[in-house]
């Protein structure tokens, strides 16, 4: 096995066995299907592929998916930081319950979240009526998609930032205060830079998750072509028409754009680590 030749010697047994199990399962379950997707794209050919992606309906769906994910993740960046700060630094009644409940979007199936949010925020639902009185329509509009994606991405930022806030040395803040920095100045110039790498990580995780989200969105979106039709839904529609090539084209476009976005975020992370020092 080639891997054994390039690994450093170790007295522990089981490398061949564990590496073998890992590689076999990884290949069958993850790599082979993704290779099939890319392989199908190659057989279709780049020109044909581009022809199927380059239609107004596909572009609108892709733009909607990525725009909504970006907006929801930016919202979660702020709300997630706020929640993490409040949960770590303040003591109030119900704090532990809130801390445990943050992870609800990880534990609650997306379809269940989708129908629950729709029932609440539909025009005849309790929250939907309240927002309707203000002239805001949430369910069956783009706002509904944002809401579902905010729900799905909520825990990511909080959970990556929380342990970092716990480890902040309060002496840094005391030093800043002693030197005459106001509390706002200390938070902005001392605390925030320490949290930036974790914030970016949480943002990237939330973004990656919400770009491809399907289950919670389709119930609340309304699913009108050119308006509230997300890219994953368009893939499902093409599959139901047995148009595998068109579905493949959209799937590959989504993979390519997500990959590019993660690369950009990775580059920002490397840059911020270098600028601020340890992450």
């Amino acid at each position, binding site marked *: 096995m080639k891997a054994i030749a390039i*690994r450093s010697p170790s007295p*522990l047994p089981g490398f061949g066995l*564990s590496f073998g199990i890992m590689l076999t399962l990884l290949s069958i379950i993850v790599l082979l299907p993704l290779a099939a997707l890319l392989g199908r794209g190659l057989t279709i050919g780049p020109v044909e592929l581009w022809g199927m992606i380059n239609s107004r309906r596909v572009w609108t769906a892709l733009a909607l998916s990525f725009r909504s994910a970006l907006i929801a993740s930016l919202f979660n960046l702020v709300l997630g930081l706020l929640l993490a700060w409040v949960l770590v630094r303040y003591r109030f009644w119900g704090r532990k319950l809130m801390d445990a409940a943050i992870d609800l979007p990880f534990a609650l*199936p997306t379809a269940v979240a989708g129908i*629950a949010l729709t029932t609440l925020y539909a025009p005849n639902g309790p929250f939907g009526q309240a927002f309707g009185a203000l002239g805001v329509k949430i369910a069956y509009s783009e706002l509904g998609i944002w809401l579902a994606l905010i729900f799905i991405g909520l825990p990511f930022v909080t959970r990556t930032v929380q342990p970092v806030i716990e480890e902040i040395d309060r002496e840094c803040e005391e030093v800043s205060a002693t030197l005459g920095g106001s509390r706002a100045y200390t938070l902005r110039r001392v605390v925030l830079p320490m949290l930036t790498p974790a914030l970016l990580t949480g943002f990237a995780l939330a973004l990656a998750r919400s770009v491809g989200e*399907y289950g919670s969105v389709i119930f609340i979106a309304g699913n009108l072509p050119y308006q509230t039709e997300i890219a994953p839904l368009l893939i499902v529609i093409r599959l139901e028409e047995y148009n595998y090539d068109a579905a493949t084209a959209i799937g590959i476009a989504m993979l390519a754009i*997500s990959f590019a976005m993660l690369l950009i975020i990775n580059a920002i992370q490397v840059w911020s680590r270098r600028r601020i020092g340890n992450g």
Partner: protein
Amino acid sequence: MADIPVQAFTPVTTEHRHFRAVLIGISVFFMVILLFAPLATIFATALSDGWKAAAEGISSPDALSAIRLTLTVAAIAVPLNIIFGIAAAWAIAKFDFRGKAFLITLIDLPFSVSPVVAGLALVLLFGSHGAFGTWLIAHDLKIVFAFPGILLATLFITFPFVARELIPVMIEQGRAEEEAALTLGASGWRVFRSVTLPNIRWALLYGVLLANARAMGEFGAVAVISGKIRGETTTMPIMIEMLYNEYLSVAAFSLASLLAALALVTLALKSLLEWRFAGQLAATRRH
């Protein structure tokens, strides 16, 4: 000291009292409208026609077969996940080899692939027009629109959960204890069972909880590959979608409340692990 009014004193390392109250208020507001209210809606809608209607919703033949299918899928997917997670963590944490970082990226891949794209990829591989299509038809094997497809989709989605939890914990624990056990004459299997496993059991349980919640609740990937044949390939989330689209909201929400109850149990156990065994988990430590 008693002369100083207590309320007037704000330590330099915290915010002003009013500002604190505002921040707590905003947090509670968003927690309620985003998390607590939807959760309450699930149970309230399920019970809106009384207990009897809710019980009928989850005891219809279709609902029962959906529950059975979901439990079967999880019962196979989660153990396979444990085997993969332990194997991956053992190889990655206890040995040094080239390409390790790349391997971890590959394991994380399912986190950044849309569930629908995952389902699509499986259809392209195993469907009748797919890469293995003709071979599967010749051997009379059905994967897409059948149980194996649902299982594969669930495995794809839950793939990184256990491994991601175990790898950092096992890296941090190092290999000194295992090497000591080997020196004392223990066999490789014995080293794993009596030295490694006790060290990672809580992290393992944590990963299993998350993987199980996701396995039972996966919708996007399963929706693409299941074909939605009533009573045969409808898992609980798919059944919920079908009932909801037929405007049978009490039936849909009573089935949903079972999954919501599972989510609450998962959260409770997870919090318990975090409070009692924080030092032995990866999630509660700095990344």
